[in-house]
């Protein structure tokens, strides 16, 4: 299995762990994830203005490149995934955006949303299969683990089609596959505070600590996430509950977390 891979900027800086362990795990699972050449920023935040073409262009470049290389694009960062998947949907279903973006970009071949955008978790579930991961696990993570989804993976549900936004299960299934016990707690899909942490730190801290104390209250020994921004907010909230990227835990379970 070969997939195009888009890490995004944060995975090259603050969230290096998310990237490194994803690569190691993929290798251990026999999957080739090939980083796209000369990739640029995804756009950062999906623009909700339908007239705004410019913020969509860098995502379209990524998508068009993935189309040339097999047509399956894997992302990890929740924010990148959200932006790229929604721009892809625009190119598939919004004739106006499609026309204007293509006219501007003058690609060799017009891009019409052909690329399938997969989150790493979706790749694990749909392409590898959680059953196969279970078989590949060498060090089962024998812990009570709370899944933290945040918002970007789940919403807007119509476009993201990731999981049931009110009662998601994919990360819980992942936790079971690596030998852990999922802890279902009510705040696993609540807001972490997001970009409020730039301007109003107390507000972001309040939201994040509500998440962690809810997880802790339900018996979680750690919380895993796929989102660098959630990770940042949860970490700085002051609650003493470990927050880890899901890829790190996967690598640990597969026995590939050491330095080679």
């Amino acid at each position, binding site marked *: 299995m070969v997939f195009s891979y888009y890490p995004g900027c944060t995975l090259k800086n603050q969230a290096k762990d998310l990237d490194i362990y994803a690569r190691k795990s993929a290798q251990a699972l026999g999957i080739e994830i090939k980083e796209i050449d000369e990739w640029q920023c995804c756009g950062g935040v999906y623009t909700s203005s339908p007239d705004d073409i410019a913020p969509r262009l860098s995502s379209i470049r990524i998508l068009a490149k993935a189309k040339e290389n097999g047509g399956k694009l894997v992302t990890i960062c929740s924010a990148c995934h959200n932006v790229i998947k929604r721009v892809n949907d625009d190119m598939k279903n919004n004739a106006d955006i499609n026309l204007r973006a293509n006219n501007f970009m003058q690609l060799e071949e017009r891009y019409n949303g052909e690329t399938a955008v997969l989150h790493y978790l979706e790749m694990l579930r749909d392409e590898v299969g959680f059953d196969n991961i279970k078989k590949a696990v060498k060090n089962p993570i024998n812990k009570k683990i709370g899944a933290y989804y945040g918002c970007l993976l789940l919403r807007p549900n119509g476009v993201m089609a990731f999981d049931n936004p*009110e009662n998601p299960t994919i990360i819980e299934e992942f936790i079971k596959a690596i030998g852990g016990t999922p802890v279902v707690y*009510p705040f696993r899909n609540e807001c972490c505070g997001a970009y409020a942490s730039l301007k109003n730190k107390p507000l972001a801290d309040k939201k994040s600590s509500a998440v962690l104390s809810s997880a802790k209250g339900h018996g979680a020994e750690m919380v895993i996430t796929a989102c660098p921004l959630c990770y940042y907010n949860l970490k700085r909230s002051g609650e003493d509950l470990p927050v880890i990227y899901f890829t790190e835990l996967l690598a640990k379970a597969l026995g590939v977390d050491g330095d080679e």
Partner: protein
Amino acid sequence: MHRIGVFVCHCGSNIAATVDVERVSNALAHEPGVVHSVNYQYMCSENGQQLIKNAIKEHNLSGIVVCSCSPRMHEATFRKTAEAAGLNPYMVEIANIREQCSWIHKDVEEATEKAIVLARTAVAKLTLNKPLVAGETGVTKRALVIGGGIAGIQAALDIADAGYEVDIVEKNPTIGGRMAQLDKTFPTLDCSACILTPKMVDCAQHEKINIYSYSEVDKVKGFVGNFKVTIKKKARYVDETKCTGCGVCMTNCPSKKGLNSFNMDLNTRPAIYIPFAQAIPNVAVIDPEQCIKLKSGKCGLCSMKCGANAIDYKQQDSFVEREYGAIVVATGFKPISLENFNEYGYADNKDVITSLELERLMNAAGPSKGTLVRPSDGEHPHVITFIQCVGSRDVSGCGKPYCSKICCMYTAKHAMLIREKYPDTQVNVFYIDVRTPGKNYDEFYRRAVEQYGVNYIKGMVGKVYNENGKLMVQGSNLIDNEQVTIASDLVVLATAIEPDPSVKDLATKLTISIDTNNFLTEAHAKLKPVECATAGVYLAGVCQGPKDIPETVAQASAAASKVIGLLAKDKLKGNPCVAHANEMTCTGCSQCAEVCPYGAITYENKEFRIGGGKTEKRRVASVNPAVCQGCGACTVTCPSGAMDLHGFSSAQILKEVEAICKR
């Protein structure tokens, strides 16, 4: 020789503002066959109709074209006008220059041009019209009411009181419907059972009413005045004629773990049961999924204990065929499933309940004998939070886009009743808007707020979760512009209502149309609210749209009066625009019969002379004009062109096309 009159209507400014009516009538005056062409402000008014009548007589017209609104609106009116002046009503053609012309154009030049073409087209068709005479059919003086809730009960009683026989077909073991499950009714707070059960008894005792309980409509054939309906009587494993409703079987049944659907599954019932004490008919029924005897062959306790010898484990579904002149559909509603609303935690928390479940919890005959307790631990709840519009007015795709209409009022009722009975209880209501149009309705809601101190919070709820045994209701308060979390003991969801799922299948059987929300479609949103596009079928209650009890009763009585008006006639005039086969060209291939949705086409072997004194026998199609609805499916299917439609012949349609293409 044709003597055609053309009458161009202004429809006030509806047509005249966009179409130069003077030019239309002048242009048409020169059409071949047209001897008279005028325009007038309102052709459908009494004066307008008189103008037509006078012209028919004065100019000895052989046919008329009225250029006006859609034929769905006034074709019948102008046919009557022509008939009154001695003209055959089928020598009338309508050129629709309003809906298909003036209303959709802005440019006067364009619209006038098009109106002239449409009028010419109608004239061209009219030159091939032939006087038609509608046939007559008899009327079976019996009505069928499908659904035995308050709508069906009211309709049946009204029809029966007028002296006609009525059959009620109810899929459940008893009539009574949703209203039987309610505790009190708004806005007067009278007990639901106290006002419903006497009507149920009236139905049972009425000599003109026959109840088929635990039965379903299996097949429907025929047409207005002459429906043939097959009713499936589901096996209840109890002989209705013998059972006395004593209940001994229920107390002796060892299989007691079935969910009690009458109590919204809040408690259990035995495998043999009578749904509730006032059930009509008061006859037991066995749930075959739960009965030990029916599943394993061992047991038979109820049969041994039954003094009336009414138990019959070998009973099978049976079918009855009955004839009816009219049908009332009153299949009612159910609350929507909450599987798309995980945010409210209904599936995970026993103390998150629906409003209909609360009705049972507050009812003296309910699972807690009318004492309001939490389903989880039987404790009295001290803080109760209601969430309105759960699945109503929801355009996200999870729920229904419409307003369920009854929830604001019943929530105010629940809140008030709880505050009255348990004054120590704090009651909160989250709402988007409070909608209380109706006589004494807003006063009722204000009483809840002002007199009973119910805490209404404008805003929606995002999440309900359990924290240390308390249900945390997290929502927004839009008036105070803040997020609130209310620790509650009981959460009640005002769940949206939707038509009973059985209605989809029924709509197909009755060839009545259904909208995107599965509500049955009335013939006209304003002027024909209880009729259907299919003649002889009428609608009552929530199957047509969300409504409360007073409105349901009013609609049921309206449907009944339509039925009575129909059954009072001895003969019905049919539609003469029906199909007919040209036996000379018909090859008997059967393709027309295959596409006919009404089963109007049969075949017969006929003898034809083929010259030389010889004859041959050939199979040819024959259309029953009483059953044919004139849809035309057969005419376009027939490979030899033998099928044609009176009033819409292929020659007429081609003549119209020719007129449109001719410039």
